[in-house]
């Protein structure tokens, strides 16, 4: 009987802490980046990204499929950038499907990629490794 009550108390405590923790994650600023919120055009670009399931092959911050490159900093990459991205979209290169994006859709996708690019670095080359296993990352 004692044990059962103890289990219920532990579960109740965990759920209360979880509820507080979640409310902070959902409502407070959890980002360490100074990038602004996505614009209307950026959201439209994200919708195209999702509609075509680009995440099956590409990643942001290393999260996504690994068949294609990570696109977090595609736009600020001095070798690639906006024009390179636009040229690739409808190219159907290698395993990439041959999309038929309109100019408007391409511009929206570019806005989305630009705004993602402003949120941070990946791979993050300016990191500091600490003896306790921690890594401090550089923010934008």
């Amino acid at each position, binding site marked *: 009987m004692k044990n059962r009550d103890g289990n219920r108390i532990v579960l109740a405590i965990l759920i209360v802490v979880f509820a507080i923790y979640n409310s902070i994650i959902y409502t407070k600023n959890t980002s360490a980046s100074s990038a602004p919120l996505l614009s209307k055009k950026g959201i439209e670009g994200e919708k195209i990204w999702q509609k075509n399931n680009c995440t099956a092959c590409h990643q942001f911050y290393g999260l996504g499929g690994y*068949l294609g490159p990570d696109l977090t900093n595609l736009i600020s990459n001095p070798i690639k950038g906006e024009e390179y991205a636009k040229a690739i979209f409808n190219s159907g290169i290698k395993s990439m499907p041959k999309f038929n994006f309109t100019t408007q859709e391409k511009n929206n996708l570019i806005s989305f990629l630009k705004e993602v690019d402003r949120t941070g670095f990946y791979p993050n080359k300016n990191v500091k490794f600490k003896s306790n296993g921690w*890594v401090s990352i550089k923010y934008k």
Partner: protein
Amino acid sequence: MEANKRFSILFITLGIMALATTVLIGVLASFVYLYPDFLKDYIPFNRLRPLHTTSAISWIILTAIGGIYYYIHSLENTYISFPKLEKAHFFIFLITGISIYFSLFFGKMGGREYLEYYPLLTIPILIGWIFFGINYFTTMLINVKKWPVYFWMWGTGILFMIYHLSEAHFWLFSSIRNDFIKDISIQWKSYGSFVGSWNLLVYGTAIYLMAKIKKDDSIGRGKEYFFFYFLGLTNLMFGWAHHTYIIPTQPWIRYVAYVVSMTEWIIFIHIVYNWKKSLKKDKMIINQMAYKFLIASDFWVFFNLMLALLMSIPSLNYFMHGTHITVAHSMGTTIGINTSILLASVSFVVSDLLKNNKLNHNKILRIGYYAFNTSLFLFLTVLIESGIFKARWILNNPNSNFGIYQEDSSFIYIFFVIAGIVLFISLITVIIPILKHLLKSLFSR
């Protein structure tokens, strides 16, 4: 077969079919790494991959649910509260599952990794889970006093599954969607906890099976089991951010995850180890396929413990993140641990249903069992090697073209495809005799 168990067997049969689909599509998708144009005009990779991952998730969830229904029906003097709700649950999942395959096949995407199907289809899935929850809690609270840990695990697994599946769709709210970092953080928070929720169902099943195989009712009732359960729950709630160390979130979120993650897995190993140590080497037990699969899951827990602990250390995660090492970890967990436990569960159910030992003495299944574990080990080794190669390549070629990386790693992809084919054949060898027995029991009176 007893009529009340029919739908639990239907859930399991669907689950087994989803496993066969998973490995088949997985092999097809792996060919794209070697031949980029493979199937591109018919079903490109952005549709192929979600078909593979959705099938894998379906296998785990359907088989875990089917097992739990079966075990509830097997309890003495216990009748499920709402049999019609169980039927409705099955048909909702069946129809929604078919709709999801159509949605993915024809490219009607929600486009969120692992939940790529059209988002509205989540509503019937949630309804199915709510039906399951109503049936589970009304049946168990009324009929069973002093719950062992596995009943707690199944109950909380159902509740958290409902919560985190909903949480995975918070991106539909503009306040979340407009903030890219918050959005991607909540997305991975929900995924980490979603996997934690199904782990509660699957690990609960493992402990239940231990108790039944050993015929020892004290298993799952000690303080140690509850300590492990609460630790797992803590990880489910707060450990998710080890997936997102590299995302620019507030450092405190990552600190919490780092501390919590370090505690993960250890207790489970401890419990399995203690159980195995105390298990009498009774020939009847050793010969059971359910026992063999549980022992295999024991090995895969050790394997994944190593990877999980290494990946949860931020300074190592920095190199492993974004490479196939993370795939090795997720496949080691889903195919190694979850699949082994669920195959143990299915073997146990089939032997119990047929009231004979035919499955335990099936030679093809025994060959498949050894082939499956060996080929999975090979497959995961190739994935880890591929991850190490990518991490080194990125460090040495920071501004190089991705196409060059793909060409440089083509030799690894050859091994990746070969290992995938061998894994496919070995799993099919396991699936066929089990499916044959399942169908036999389904059509027997």
